[in-house]
């Protein structure tokens, strides 16, 4: 089953990459892009009976390995089930 994990730097953490991108875009004439935050995106192919099982597996994996809680937060999505339960930007791809 296909699950997706989004890992983003916590808002309190300075994101030099995002900063650099905004600056670059500014000089390219894209001043309308006010802010950019860069994160990581994982597509996991997991063996699981149910979307719920897939979600909890992906969540465990994200928690233990994919994200570093000191600086990052994560969000898990599963193709088959409803929208991502947790708050934060909703992804239109899930329905």
């Amino acid at each position, binding site marked *: 089953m296909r699950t997706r994990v989004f890992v983003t730097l916590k808002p309190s*953490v300075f994101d*030099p*990459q995002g900063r650099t991108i905004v600056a670059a875009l500014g000089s390219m004439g894209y001043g309308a892009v006010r802010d950019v935050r860069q994160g990581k995106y994982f597509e996991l192919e997991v063996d699981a009976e149910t979307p719920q099982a897939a979600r909890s597996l992906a969540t465990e994996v994200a928690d233990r*390995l994919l994200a*570093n809680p*000191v600086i990052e937060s994560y969000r898990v999505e599963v193709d088959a089930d409803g929208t991502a339960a947790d708050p934060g930007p909703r992804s239109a791809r899930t329905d």
Partner: protein
Amino acid sequence: MRFAIIQFPGSNCDHDAYHAAKHVLGQQAQLVWHKESTLGGADVVVLPGGFSYGDYLRTGAIARFSPVMRRVREFADAGGPVIGICNGFQVLLEAGFLEGALLRNRRLKFLCRHVHVRVEQTDTPFSRAASPGQVLRLPIAHGEGSYHAAPETVAALEANRQVVFRYCGPEGAVTEAGNPNGSLAAIAGVCNRRRNVVGLMPHPERACESALGSEDGRVVLESVVTATAATGAA
């Protein structure tokens, strides 16, 4: 005394640490493969620099799950001296031996050069032989060495005197120019509360011989020799 140098897949400063411990300091040293289940009676454990698991995902993120890390944990819990250099520091942070995290360098580029660091604390096994405020000229070589921690964590580290090394200028003044990677509070190295586990981004093992441009790193490794000689190994 006996140094154990942990070899993770992708470690590439393991032999440098071995050379410094064995041929420069004249101590016993052995390389310990990450799948080992014993540290072979080591008095000191070194987590060397490099790119464990290619630095994929996050530096040190995968290495922390290596079997040998359980033994390192026991060793540290028993008060044994553990030092993590560069990638080794990153592993210690990921594994929770030390507090904080390392982010991409401020300029987003890998940076290899000599920098100056000030010895802030001399009551750790890896700074004991230094004098307080002593300035060391050491090489750095990393892309992700910008130290970060929550403000309260940094405050606690300062309060508990856990910041062991700080980036500075040639005369020891902490300045923007002296901070090569944008580390918070110019932090180059920290220790745990018990003070037996130390991690730092600069490479003392690369600065142990005049032929290599600096001998300032010797004091870091010599500290542990004297320290452990004095207290008797953990």
